[in-house]
């Protein structure tokens, strides 16, 4: 509902206490990323570890959630098990609209449940339910039972974790409605540490429309722009997997632990190939007519006679890169099988894929042996990787326990740091050059979505540190406002400042609309302040040697430029944090 304050539901799993609080700050932090940061400052403890029961797990939506198309994402904020610092992860599915219609701007979960539990939230219900019988189940089995035992079928979101989250691996994700994920930086482990197997949010409320006719007019214009123009076609045609061929043609696709950046064999896992043979259907986040979710299938023969089962698995560029090109697996069905295993285990797909690429090269080089890896990891050997992903989820031995924390920690323990493809966390699927590497290595979420470094790399701007710095800082500022609304970043071409201003005004947030520039700058500063206060030292981040050994369409990566940009960006971050 439109209101000047935030309506926040906090649930303490230890005591069972539930509190609804009205919190001021709409015009200062907007919602989403800004609201989550404000709530972490209120509920979080900087000098305690991420798994301290008192630490909050926050889900926040924005002022435009549900009111406009593609305002369909939720920001999840927490102290990350990956680096024990403040972090965000974003997802869609039905999570954002469910929280909107349950009538909360944010949900804050603290404490630790006595038994494995599910939290049920709606506009007229809040309940902590014992689901000890689900502990240890994979995501699919848990999903089937949860859909049956939780109330309110249909207009609800079910967020859940798998065995990796229960074991509190920093690579554990929170799955949202089967096909979307709060993937990175270990939000799944935070749920695990709280003994929380699932969260169900029932979007069972409804609200009067904003007054006047302006809202419907602005909605129609935005909807038309989202659906009629070509701007969004790349997302609903091939989807993000269209990037595989594009990156390969640019010599910017990380292949076999980034030992190569182009290979004709990647045609077997291109978006075009997926669409031709493996695409089963599309799906959308609630509130998004674009429908970028691409769902493929794998079928599995389980008896000699022709007996099969099949599963539906969503795929994206990042996943195809992480368990496809990075592992030398160049067949789309084998890639889907690997995604399927990671999904079942409740692992993020990207980090484990990149970690296994490092492990494969480490095994090749004799730094580790099969005694550690348990299976013969080799580029292209999908069966071994399927087994290894399960070892990572369950932490079968010491090696997998360390590897499932991070590639950097494994390299610290066993050696091979030069070829560990980590940029703050395991890399994303863009080997475009210096600006992207610096952007991910130092960026707030260590994500390709923090700032468009990959796109800067593709512009013929030369290598001016000042120019690149300005781009990274300003681009982050723009994106942080979008993630405070909370928009899908695919809509950034449509949601210009002018359009966002119109949207905000049309629903009654005129003050916010008039101060967008200042508010986004303040949110950017607040997030960095929290990150630095929780222990982040951007100046000490290093970029492994492998990243300067590669050649892209622009030639060899320029280490000197990259180091200068890194130093400058670290300084800019510290300045934003007020240090």
């Amino acid at each position, binding site marked *: 509902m439109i209101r000047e304050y935030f309506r926040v539901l906090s649930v303490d799993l230890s005591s069972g206490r539930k509190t609804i609080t009205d919190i001021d700050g709409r015009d200062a932090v907007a919602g989403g990323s800004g609201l989550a940061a404000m709530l972490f400052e209120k509920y979080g403890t900087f000098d305690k570890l991420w798994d301290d029961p008192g630490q909050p797990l926050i889900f926040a939506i924005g002022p435009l959630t*549900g*009111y406009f*198309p593609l305002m369909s994402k939720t920001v999840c904020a927490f102290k990350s098990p990956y680096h024990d610092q403040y972090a965000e992860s974003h997802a869609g599915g039905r999570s954002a*609209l469910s929280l909107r*219609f349950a009538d909360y701007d944010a949900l804050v979960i603290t404490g630790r449940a006595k038994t494995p539990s599910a939290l049920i939230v709606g506009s*007229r219900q809040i309940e902590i339910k014992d689901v000890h019988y689900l502990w240890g189940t994979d995501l699919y089995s848990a999903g089937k039972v949860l*859909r049956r035992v939780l109330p309110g*079928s*249909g*207009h609800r979101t079910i967020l859940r974790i798998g065995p990796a989250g229960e074991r509190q691996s920093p690579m554990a994700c929170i799955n949202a409605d089967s096909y979307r994920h709060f993937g990175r930086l270990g939000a799944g482990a935070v749920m695990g540490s709280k003994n929380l197997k699932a969260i169900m949010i029932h*979007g*069972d*409320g*409804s*609200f*009067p*429309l904003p007054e006047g006719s302006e809202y*419907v007019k602005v*909605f129609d214009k935005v*909807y038309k722009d989202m*659906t009629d123009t070509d701007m969004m076609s790349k997302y*609903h045609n091939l989807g993000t997997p269209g990037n595989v061929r594009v990156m390969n043609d640019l010599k910017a696709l990380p292949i076999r632990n980034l030992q190569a950046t182009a290979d004709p064999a990647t045609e077997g896992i291109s978006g075009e190939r997926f669409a031709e043979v493996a695409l089963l*259907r*599309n*799906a*959308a*986040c*609630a*509130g*998004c*007519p*674009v*429908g970028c*979710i691409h769902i493929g299938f794998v079928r599995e023969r389980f008896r000699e006679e022709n007996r099969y089962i099949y599963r*539906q698995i969503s795929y994206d560029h990042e996943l195809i890169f992480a368990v496809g090109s990075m592992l030398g697996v160049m067949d789309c069905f084998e890639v889907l099988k690997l995604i399927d295993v990671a999904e079942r285990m409740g692992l993020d797909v990207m980090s484990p894929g990149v970690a296994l690429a490092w492990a494969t090269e480490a095994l090749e080089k004799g730094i580790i042996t099969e005694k550690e890896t348990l299976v013969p990891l080799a580029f292209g050997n999908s069966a071994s990787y399927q087994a290894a992903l399960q070892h990572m989820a369950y932490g079968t031995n010491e090696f997998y326990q360390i590897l499932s924390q991070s590639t950097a920690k494994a390299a610290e323990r066993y050696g091979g740091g030069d070829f560990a493809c980590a940029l703050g966390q395991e890399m994303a699927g863009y080997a475009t050059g210096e600006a992207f590497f610096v952007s991910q290595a130092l960026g707030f979420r260590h994500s390709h979505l923090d700032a468009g470094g990959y796109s800067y790399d593709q512009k013929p701007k030369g290598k001016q540190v000042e120019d690149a710095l300005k781009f990274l800082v300003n681009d982050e500022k723009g994106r942080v406002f979008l993630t405070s609304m909370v928009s899908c970043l695919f809509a950034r071409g449509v949601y210009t400042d002018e359009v966002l201003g119109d949207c905000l005004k049309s629903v009654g947030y005129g003050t916010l609309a008039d101060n967008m520039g200042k508010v986004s700058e303040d949110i950017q500063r607040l997030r960095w302040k929290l990150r630095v206060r929780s222990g982040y030292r951007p100046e000490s981040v290093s970029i492994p040697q492998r990243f300067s050994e590669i050649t892209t369409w622009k030639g060899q990566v320029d280490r000197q430029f990259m180091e200068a940009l890194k130093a400058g960006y670290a300084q800019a971050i510290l300045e934003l944090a007020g240090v």
Partner: protein
Amino acid sequence: MKILTTPRMERCIGCHSCSLACARLVHKRLSWDTAGIRIKSSGGLSTGFEARTCLACDPAPCVAACPTAAYSQRKGGGVVVRKKLCIRCGACAKACPVDAIYLDTALEPYVCIHCGRCVPFCPHDCLEHTELSRGATPAIREAAVDGEVEP
């Protein structure tokens, strides 16, 4: 008179744009519930989504059940709604054989009035506002859209 049909729900991606449009434009609400068309994921043997919406009965059981004539028979199927006459008894929703009528917490009923305003918001053309007689199979309706079959 035209009715709303959902002949191509296999194409539905679950964006809820139709429900949100109905709530916004017809009922002046922000909601995916208080709408004449509502989307649910369909589990079981089939996958994907199904639409809960009025199938344009004639005669309509909800009309027979309504004690105040707030619901009256619409020509071509479905109902004409006079909200002022509604006493929030919920009898219409109970009488509907396909669960097409949504009752909010105050027992106010929401039903499709076959106005077709949701149709342009479906990105995959799952919906149709059509004069076709009831009983035509989806395949025939689709062919009719392509101009191959005379309605």
